[in-house]
């Protein structure tokens, strides 16, 4: 477990400039190396963070953002850190759209309500969904495939000593909490996932659709909603939200045999509010690509025992080592596999590690700066030559 820490501290990071936190760890907007994008270390309103993304799909479907500063358009309004992690499926369109619009919607709603709350975050999800479905409607005739694209959305907001976690889909956030008795850090999962592989999710779907025996189907040893999709909540996936998008010219493999009156998937997030405690050391936000290879405790142990600088990249590498082992090959050889084909070895993986510094959180002098970063650097699809 601690093995990845024995490696020399992360390479390719020579241009550390110190001083301004946002510039530490190289380029403020991150760096790319082959299919990997990373921002080894930076500062947010209440501590430091580290981000890394590895691409597996032909077009990167994972999108992510970290916004630090004002969380509304009011000067007196809520201040803190916003983390968004959007794991797209069927294409990159929805996750890109959410990456552009979720935070804007949240800011707008927080200004209207003059506060940050679970209700504001939920409304931001629903507003983003509504906007995306209008986009699908606009493009339906020219680009019907957009109806089959969707995205899981995980949002974390650190504000006023509280952490709000809102999740629709199967990304996950895990808290690392100092445990004096065990002389280590304990992993506490804060997000609720909506994957049909979980019993309670299947039960929920069956109770919502009591007349549909085919609501969840086991396919390739994996539970899928209508035999098509593993998650039960998402933004997008218009073809499973409105019957009008489940007909020709949509590809036959996405079309259901019968029209439906009630949406099959839901965009509503499960929201959890956590009061931050001085023992809370860090949060690991990651798409399911990481969690299929690392357990919560394994990930927390790596973050606890290794330097902060480059920690997200270290987690991604630890997951890739496991992925390589599962496919009976070496990690060094996995790196030779091109994007697209890589999907057979692992999924797109995004990791954002957010360190929590409570004293900093309460200091009002740090309120002056704002900072914004996008996973992948906002550059469309890094290409491999």
């Amino acid at each position, binding site marked *: 477990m601690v093995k990845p820490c024995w490696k020399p501290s992360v390479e390719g990071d020579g241009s550390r400039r110190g001083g301004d936190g946002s510039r530490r760890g190289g380029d403020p907007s991150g760096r790319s190396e082959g299919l990997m994008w990373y921002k080894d270390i930076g500062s947010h309103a209440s501590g430091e963070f580290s981000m890394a993304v590895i691409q597996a799909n032909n077009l990167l479907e994972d999108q992510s953002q970290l916004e630090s500063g004002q969380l509304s358009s009011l000067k007196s309004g809520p201040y803190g850190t916003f983390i968004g992690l959007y794991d797209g499926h069927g294409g990159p369109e929805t996750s890109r759209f959410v990456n552009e619009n979720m935070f804007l919607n949240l800011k707008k709603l927080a200004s209207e309500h003059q506060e940050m709350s679970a209700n504001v975050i939920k409304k931001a999800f629903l507003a983003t969904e509504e906007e995306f479905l209008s986009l699908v409607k606009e493009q339906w005739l020219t680009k019907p495939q957009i109806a089959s694209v969707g995205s899981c959305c995980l949002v974390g907001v650190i504000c006023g000593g509280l952490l709000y976690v809102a999740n629709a889909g199967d990304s996950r956030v895990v808290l690392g909490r100092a445990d004096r008795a065990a002389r280590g850090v304990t992993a506490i999962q804060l997000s609720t996932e909506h994957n049909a592989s979980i019993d309670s999710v299947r039960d929920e779907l069956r109770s919502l659709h009591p007349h549909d025996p085919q609501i969840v189907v086991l396919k390739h040893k994996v539970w899928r909603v209508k035999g098509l999709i593993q998650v039960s909540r998402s933004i997008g996936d218009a073809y499973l939200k409105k019957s009008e998008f489940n007909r020709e010219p949509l590809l036959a493999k996405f079309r259901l045999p019968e029209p439906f009156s009630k949406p099959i998937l839901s965009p509503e997030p499960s929201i959890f509010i956590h009061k931050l405690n001085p023992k809370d050391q860090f949060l690991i936000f990651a798409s399911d690509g990481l969690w299929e290879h690392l357990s919560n405790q394994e990930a927390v142990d790596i973050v606890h025992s290794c330097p902060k600088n480059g920690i997200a990249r270290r987690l991604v590498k630890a997951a890739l080592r496991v992925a390589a082992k*599962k496919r*009976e*090959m070496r990690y060094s050889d996995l790196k*030779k596999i091109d994007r697209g084909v890589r999907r*057979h070895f692992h999924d797109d993986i995004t990791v954002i590690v957010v360190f929590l510094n409570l004293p900093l959180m309460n200091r009002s002098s740090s309120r002056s700066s704002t900072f914004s970063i996008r996973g992948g650097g906002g550059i469309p699809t890094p290409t491999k030559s």
Partner: protein
Amino acid sequence: MKKIRGFLLKHRVNTLFRCVLRRNRTPRGYHRLGSPPTCTISKLISWVQRLKSKARAICCQKPGPGYLHLGQDPVQEKALPVPKGHMAVYVRQEDGDFQRVLVPVIYINHPLFGKLLREAEEEYGYDHPGGITIPCRISEFESVQTRIAAGRGCRKTLTWK
């Protein structure tokens, strides 16, 4: 596949004998002027040791039983070391069992292999446990491998990126 494994093994055996014989050949029959005469017994012992270590290296490289029964989780198996630049792929045999085949990693990026992988995805999805499993027949798989190898023009393609 036999062909490729045979080739690998032959390569190893050749290297072994080349190593062992080459070292032994030079000082035969005479001693260089000024060099002390070496003891034949110690020479013999070191030769046996070299032979032993080389033989051990070959045994370790052996890809094991060659196939796994369906349902047996390949990851759970005691990890068989895969040579650098290669990965294990499971291909369906005539009897429905799966044969474990070692494939150069760079073949995986080839469009012909991509077609096999798409079939694998349709059949098993992306998230199946264990090694990559190809639903095609071993004969079809071998022909794809031969065509990729032929397209590369030579066998020594491992350094290609």
